[in-house]
């Protein structure tokens, strides 16, 4: 089940907003497509990104995918645990596999993002 408190991008990142802070990771579908994740490259806290910009990359054994930020903001924390245990993204993409926390610079930017339900439909359509 896709948690319904999340918003999704077409590039399969998720965003959970609590107040002015947002937590970002990749969807269960994305981790399955990538296969065993072996490395994540994340930005340093303090770096700022505009919505849609790449903020890092995720690597499986034979592929590299860029990560795109769902909304504009400043990185306030990264998930340090992923350095030693990137498999957490495969095991728990919406929990322990989170990647970064940001301070949103503009809370009105979420209009283009999909709800969990819309995202599930989007994946369904892509598969067909």
């Amino acid at each position: 089940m896709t948690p319904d408190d999340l918003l999704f991008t077409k590039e399969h990142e998720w965003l959970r907003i609590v107040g002015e802070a947002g937590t970002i990771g990749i969807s269960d579908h994305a981790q399955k497509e990538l296969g065993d994740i072996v490395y994540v490259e994340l930005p340093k806290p303090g770096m700022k990104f505009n919505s849609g910009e790449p903020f890092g990359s995720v690597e499986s054994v034979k592929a590299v995918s860029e990560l795109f930020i769902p909304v504009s903001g400043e990185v306030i924390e990264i998930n340090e645990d992923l350095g030693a245990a990137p498999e957490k993204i495969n095991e728990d993409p919406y929990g322990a596999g989170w990647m970064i926390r940001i301070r949103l610079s503009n809370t009105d930017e979420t209009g283009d993002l999909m709800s969990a339900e819309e995202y599930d439909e989007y994946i369904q359509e892509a598969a067909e």
Partner: protein
Amino acid sequence: MRYIPNSETDRKQMLAEIGADSIERLFSDIPENVRLRRLLNLPKALTEPELLDYFHARAAEVSGRGTPFIGAGIYRHHIPIIIDALISRSEFYTAYTPYQAEIAQGTLQAIFEFQTYIAQLTGMDVANASLYDGSTGLAEAVLMAQRISKKHKFLIARTVHPEYRAVVDTYAKNLGIHVELIEYAPDGRVDMDRLERQIGQDVAAVVVQSPNFFGTIEHTHDISELAHSRGALSIVNVCEAIALGILKPPGEDASEHRRADIVVGEAQSFGVPPSFGGPHVGFLATRERYIRQMPGRLVGLGRDYSGRPAFVLTLSTREQHIRREKATSNICTNQSLCALMATIYLATVGPKGLREICEHNILKADYAANEIRNRTRHRLIFSAPRFNEFVLKVQGQCSFGLSLSRFYPELGNAFLLCVTETARRHEIDAMVQRLAITSAPRLTCRSTSVLCLKKARLVAARSICRHWTFQRNL
């Protein structure tokens, strides 16, 4: 045909299965207007005895089988016989890149051992599976330092092999890299005072070589410390890898600030023959934290799904076949077989043997230098400690070593001489003797001797290889 097993009958059967009436038909997609409607203009096929004759004749025209006392990046060391015996096994030399790990454990483990040896010898955390050679290795090290530092200015010592510097220039010129040279001091080492003045916070890395092109030993640890104090990385290049067996490794020091960040170089000295310039084998070693910025292949130790230890190519997401234009390098191959030669060499000589070989190099070079100083009018121009090479300022002629006039015109009539453990005492004495005599100008000039040689050979070549169509152009 020698290398084509299919018989005429086989070919007919195969064509029938394909449903084509001729082999020609299989090429129907190649338009007529680009087809070659004549035979290639190549020499007529030679038989095996003719091939042997041709190549033996060419090999005989290459002299220098006596000791030419020439090094300059390619060193003549004794090559243990077992190396050729082992690398001549088809299992090693006719195998492909070990992408299918289950049936390439031999190659993979050998490379893993190479990585281990190089890391140990350089005092670094990790080394890659080898690079084309030292010169391209140095260019890759520069690109790597640019990726790590995100800075673009490099200070490179003039005492780094001039051809290596030329290769760096070729690689660097379209990538926004700016190279500034560091001059050498009168003792033949990097001029530390000038380096200190040159190095600012905008410098990505300082690049030095030790032993350097003049054969002298640089203070690599002081240079690393200075580089680090200005926020630059330290790259140490090694052309004469044998020296790693005795000199303090650039990557090793009690203080972290005094350790190099990248040690790169050429391992030809470890059992790989000069072969007129290649193939040799480059290496690149670095700190754990820079692994993902490394170019080239890496072999890792992992496990199969039933838990047995197994070797496998790893961290390949850095490489071109996955990242394409964003890869850390465009390198596809390594120098596996040459890396294997180096690995067998190091296993054979062992730590004591390697140190002894180093001592022989140092002692023999020192003996030769002293003899020259005492018995000839030539002068040794650099006073710094050296390994197995030294520079002579020559009065008159010198038929040994490498003239430095092309690379260092400011040194005038200077020659770089190399004395390894393979030079016998009587050969060194004969060389010194010769140098003592040739202080006067020689009578025969070189171009004449080329001509004489060439004429004699033409006759031989014709009789050996009558169908050699390029004969016309000779």
